[in-house]
């Protein structure tokens, strides 16, 4: 049985359809890459999966049960959402922001305990943020801010992590770090759905890709199957570069991390 | 003999008329002068009174005023009335006063002082100007008689203050102070150095510990924070043994013969207080 399953999800804004009958499925331990050109409906699909917006039609199940029957907090413990743009209203410290990720596990009267503290420390270390703990969020660079927000989602220890373009603000080294963290999350038995624009990263890290185009699924399956010349031409209006008569496949990642790569 | 006498009388009358011919079209632009005018003048002498004179809550001459045209103290209205005398008070708009003076209208000023003697003087002067000297004297005598009728001066005057909505009290040089004194009360506010109409904190009133509190709320209609202040629990406790005494507001709007009636009301309150 799949962990998360969406069937015929549709959403329109006024007369304009944004998602049309999209099916999706996610297995435990799987990392699913959502790709597609701008406006394809990737972020909208992710927000529906996160429960932030409701689809006009279609059904969404978690462990075979309708998601809408779950209480807010129970759903928040299992599904974490990392939106693309995150403005922070107040210049809180990095540590406090990461701490907020434990909220779904706390009763209203509880405060962060020792167990929570351990998780926070571990994630802070993994996201390379130990040195920034006491810094105010607004004094960090864009890449550092993105890592703080990822850390916030990771400390929730969700079964499913939904990440909307988590690497777009990052330099190559930190892009790889973040992708590795997401993959590590999967290796611990959890699942990840990640929206990516970088097809090489998507091909390299994701177990499976789903290509959206104009609100519908154009292709779905392994990177090899999805990223063929026809799909790329249809969806992105691009062609693969040929060097010495050989096609450079997006499945080959042109760089790797020097120290942290495993 | 008879003819001689009549002739002499005629000569006397005509000479009086040339010396000070009584005005025949008097205009009053203020409630205070309205009341004195209607009490002293013959009806045919009055050209117009102010619009407030018909308000029974404020005016003692509301019924009489109904017979006369009203004005709102506007220069245009007054000029159209072709007055031969205009009564003005210290409250009259100075601009109106200058305008009327410039246009050559005779003005008769009233002092509207707060002492009993000031009132007597205002009445006497206006009566003379109106050619109604004897009516003025009899009004003054009535007032004096009214004051003396119940005036057994107490050796130790009981204490009192006036307390109005918004916490206003009447200190020295106010009508209320004069009335309290004439009625044999001791006005604590004046003694404590309050001058004129002044708001005092409630705490101050509690410190003074007045034996009696008089009040004259303007009307009973409507609600306001100002009026609610008179029902403050602290005041209620102070007043538990001596309930607040209400003297209608209209007695205090103008200095005039009504002061004698107000004094009578205050005297009655003092007698009631003594007999408790």
């Amino acid at each position: 049985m799949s962990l998360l399953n969406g069937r015929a999800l549709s959403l329109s804004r006024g007369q304009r359809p944004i998602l049309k009958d999209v099916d999706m499925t996610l297995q435990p331990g799987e990392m699913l890459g959502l790709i597609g050109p701008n406006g394809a409906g990737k972020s909208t699909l992710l927000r529906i999966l996160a429960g932030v917006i409701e689809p006009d039609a279609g059904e969404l199940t978690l462990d075979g049960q309708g998601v809408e029957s779950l209480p807010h907090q129970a759903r928040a413990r299992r599904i974490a959402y990392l939106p693309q743009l995150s403005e922070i209203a107040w210049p809180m410290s990095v540590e406090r922001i990461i701490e907020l990720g434990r909220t779904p596990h706390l009763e209203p009267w509880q405060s962060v305990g020792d167990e929570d503290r351990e998780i926070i420390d571990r994630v802070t270390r993994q996201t390379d943020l130990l040195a920034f703990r006491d810094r105010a969020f607004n004094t960090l660079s864009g890449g550092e801010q993105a890592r703080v927000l990822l850390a916030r989602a990771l400390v929730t220890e969700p079964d499913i992590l939904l990440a909307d373009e988590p690497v777009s603000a990052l330099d190559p080294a930190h892009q790889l770090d973040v992708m590795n963290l997401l993959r590590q999350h999967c290796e611990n038995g959890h699942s990840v759905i990640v929206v990516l624009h970088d097809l090489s990263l998507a091909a390299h890290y994701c177990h499976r890709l789903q290509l959206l185009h104009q609100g519908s699924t154009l292709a779905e399956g392994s990177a090899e199957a999805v990223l063929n010349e026809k799909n790329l031409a249809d969806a992105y209006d691009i062609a693969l570069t040929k060097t010495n008569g050989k096609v450079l496949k997006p499945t080959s990642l042109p760089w790797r991390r020097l120290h942290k790569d495993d | 003999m008879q003819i001689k006498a009549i002739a002499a009388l005629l000569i006397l009358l005509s000479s009086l008329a040339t010396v000070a011919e009584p005005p025949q079209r008097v205009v009053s632009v203020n409630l205070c002068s309205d009341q004195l005018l209607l009490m002293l003048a013959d009806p045919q002498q009055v050209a117009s009174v102010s619009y407030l004179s018909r308000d029974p809550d404020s005016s003692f001459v509301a019924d009489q005023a109904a017979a006369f045209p009203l004005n709102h103290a506007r220069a245009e209205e007054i000029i159209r009335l072709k007055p031969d005398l205009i009564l003005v008070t210290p409250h009259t708009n100075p601009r109106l006063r200058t305008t009327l003076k410039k246009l050559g209208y005779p003005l008769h000023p009233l002092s509207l002082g707060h002492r009993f003697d000031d009132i007597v003087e205002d009445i006497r002067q206006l009566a003379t100007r109106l050619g109604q000297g004897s009516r003025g004297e009899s009004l003054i005598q009535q007032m004096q008689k009214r004051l003396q009728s119940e005036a057994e001066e107490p050796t130790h005057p009981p204490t009192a203050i006036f307390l109005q909505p918004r916490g206003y009290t009447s200190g020295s040089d106010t009508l209320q102070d004069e009335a309290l004194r004439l009625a044999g009360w001791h006005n604590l506010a004046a003694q404590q150095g309050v001058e004129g109409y002044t708001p005092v904190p409630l705490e101050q009133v509690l410190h003074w510990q007045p034996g009696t509190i008089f009040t004259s709320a303007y009307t009973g209609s409507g609600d306001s924070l100002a009026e609610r202040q008179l029902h403050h629990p602290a005041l209620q406790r102070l007043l538990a043994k001596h309930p607040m005494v209400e003297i209608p507001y209209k007695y205090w709007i103008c200095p005039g013969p009504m002061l004698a009636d107000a004094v009578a009301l205050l005297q009655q309150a003092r007698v009631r207080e003594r007999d408790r």
Partner: protein
Amino acid sequence: MIAAVRQHRLMLSLGGAIVITALLSLTIGSQPLPLMQALQESFGEKAGVYSLILTELRIPRTLIALLAGASLGLCGAVMQSLLRNPLASPGLVGSASGAALGAVITLYFGFAGLFAYALPLGGMAGALLATLTVYLLAGRDGGTLTLILAGVAVNAFALALVSLLLNLAPSPYAVQEIALWMLGSLANVSRNELWILLPGTILGWLLIWRQGRPLDLLTLGEETASSMGADLPNLRRRLFLAVALAVGSAISVTGAIGFIGLVVPHLLRPLVGYQPSRLLIPSAMGGALLLMLADMGVRLLPVQGEIKVGVVTSLIGAPFFLWLILHHRGRDV
């Protein structure tokens, strides 16, 4: 851990300052009050004038300043956190002027005489209506500018209506009370007003109780907060109602007192690490402190009668606020 200690220290200092100020506030008035003698009288057989002044005037006045100030400070912190906007405060988003309008309608046109709680209910309804109008005008994600513009419009409208209605009111004293409703005053309040103030205040506070967590989550944006388990429509309804209850009750007794809800959360926010949940209680305490101090200032200033307490809160508040703007200019806060 260190943050928790700092938080405790902040609350202890504020609490201590409140106790000292409250005691001082009992001794200050038109006449000095020998506190010990007043207390002896109050507990003794024979009630004297000192006990009367203490129990009927100064204790109610001090408690009302404390409660109303706390409500204004707390609601300022709540509105700012809820709308994620540092300028949202009861004075700016219309709650205060709306409450004044509601209270004026009930008091001067005979509804307050119907039953004791008509007055605060009028204030609450006015606060709720005005706040919702501003909120709807500005939109849920409206920026600071739209919020201020909507607030200015609704405030001006409400205060113009207050003026007009007081001119039309049957009581001849109403016109002279315009300043009181616009600037606020604690002069001559009694225990009656305390009872009027209390239920709405407590209900409002209870509704805010334990809502710090979702307000913290809102720091991360509405979508993130909602994905993290915050029930935002419910939270919004609850907090708007809470602000209307608390501010409506306070303003219907004191008139519209400005600046406390804006300035107090601002001043305290850096001291609590900018975290909304940690800001709530200190803001309530700070508001109570500021209003009590302002009210003492009103009593100490050597003017005939009393100036309005709102004049003093604005005199203290506005320069602080200017300093804050200058201090933060150039920073993205």
